[in-house]
């Protein structure tokens, strides 16, 4: 799987509480910038480091929109742990994000 972030590959930690999230944006629009900021905040609060965020800018890589069937921007996809979940919007409604992505880390 392609990695967009600069961080190195994850160590083989238990899959159950390590979140891989991919955020699709289309250029540095106010909505997209807000989404990135909101996402970082929510992850720090709820996942305490056990997460990796990939930001995919579809203006640069339009061919990646098909794979995850992206229609709306921004779209956030939870790739790991399974099951895959998808939510749309700039992530300003924190509760919706948590519920939509099921962000409670497993105990």
């Amino acid at each position, binding site marked *: 799987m392609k990695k967009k972030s600069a961080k190195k590959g994850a160590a083989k930690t238990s899959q159950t509480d390590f979140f891989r999230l991919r955020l*699709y944006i*289309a250029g540095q629009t106010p*909505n997209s910038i*807000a*989404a990135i900021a*909101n996402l970082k905040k929510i992850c720090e609060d709820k996942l305490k480091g056990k997460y990796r965020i990939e930001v995919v800018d*579809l*203006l640069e890589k*339009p*061919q990646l*929109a*098909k794979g995850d*069937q*992206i*229609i*709306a*921007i*921004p*779209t*956030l996809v939870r790739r790991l742990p399974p099951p895959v979940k*998808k*939510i*749309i*919007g*700039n*992530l*300003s*409604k924190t509760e*919706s*994000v948590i*519920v*939509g992505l099921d962000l409670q880390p497993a105990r």
Partner: protein
Amino acid sequence: MLRTKPKAKVARIPLAKARTGIQGLDEVTGGGLPRGRVTLVCGRAGCGKSLLAMEFLVHGAIKYGEPGVCMDFEESEEKLTANVSSLGFDLRALSKQKKLLVDYVSVERNEIAETGEYNLDGVFIRLAHAVKAIKAKRVVLDSVEALFSGIADEAILRSELRRLFRWLEDQKLTAVVTGEAGAQTLTRHGLEEYVADCVISLDHRVTEQISTRRLRIVKYRGTSHGTDEYPFLIGEDGISVVPITSLVLTHKALKDRISTGISTLDEMLEGKGFFRGSSVLVTGTAGTGKSSLAANFTRAACARGEVCLYLTFEESPSQILRNMSSVGLDLSRWVKKNLLHFNAMRPTSTGLEGHLAVIHRLISQLRPSVVVIDPITNLVSVSGNYDVKSMLVRLVDFLKVEQITSMFTNLTFAGDPQERTAAAVSSLMDTWIVLRDSKPNGRPRRELYVLKSRGMAHSREARELIVSERGLELGIVLRDRPPATTAEGTSAAAAAK
């Protein structure tokens, strides 16, 4: 003193159109769909809108060198592939050749959680990417209604759709958008409000087990269009639309003549025969020789090297060939030379419009100079008299514009020979030949007379029609019969009462 320039004449730039390549549609739209604009095609499920959209793309790519992109929102890869293969093409092959590209956009049925502001840039980016990949000039969005079930915020969706249609126009792409018919509105979600330039509606009705399809141009800005419904057919090569060729009677009356196939009959018609491009009606009770007359007329035309189309609604072509050879008419020879083409149709196999569409297609393929329809009687069984007349008006009109000489046979019933035919069709016909049999002095004989023939001084005498293995001939004038007049029908009916 200010010298002002003389006012420049405002040039009337004709609206540029993109040909669809769909049989008949380019005619009824005056050249195709508006270029660089969005056309909305709406109708209920199964009416043919996806097929129309795909045909527009496929012909665009193959015939007109304009590659096309289809954004499919309905998860219908199977249907799209089937539609394209019904047109004789392989979708995957076309993709490889960069002529056609399909992006299957999955709009999830269960609502995706919305966590704040968003737009539909994902669709724009995918579409732009596909268009760029094959340098597309045409786009199909099939069908946009599907987005309404997946995107919860309708306000955002509608605003994005408006933006999308504007984007298509900015990119100078000619687009077809399909929409599902609504109960009260043209489309379920009122898409017609966003489409300013062209809206086409498709209808599919089943009445008395016969299915008929109709196309209507609801709106076409900048083009004068009829508001009629045009019947269409979905056949082997896709959609065929049957145009009404002239709303005004502008076909040229030809002066040339064409032989009837019987020299004596030609003599009865000023010695020259029918007018080329005219319509001829042959009526008579059963067994009076109508088909033989038609077949003979055809034979004569083929012998002159003219292409003929023989449409049969009652007998099979092989029956006709066999029957005619027993009266000395060898038609199979002309079939072999590709001058005579038969087409057999069951009157109930499709609605009248279906027949009309098939006839149109045959005529454009074969370009005959003579068309025989034998008989038209059975078509009445398909629908009421009014519908038959309406179909015949279109057909006769079309044939005259194409300058095709046509012959129609019609069965009449003893005791009411002329009346029914008169009501249905005689006014459309330029020449009307009546056949009948009688048994004067116990000897049966067939009779022929010309009841009317517009534009010429025709003989009104009745003659004996002799049908033998030598073919058809007209015998002597029958003195024991009064001369034919159009009032005969009425007087015969009155006498029968």
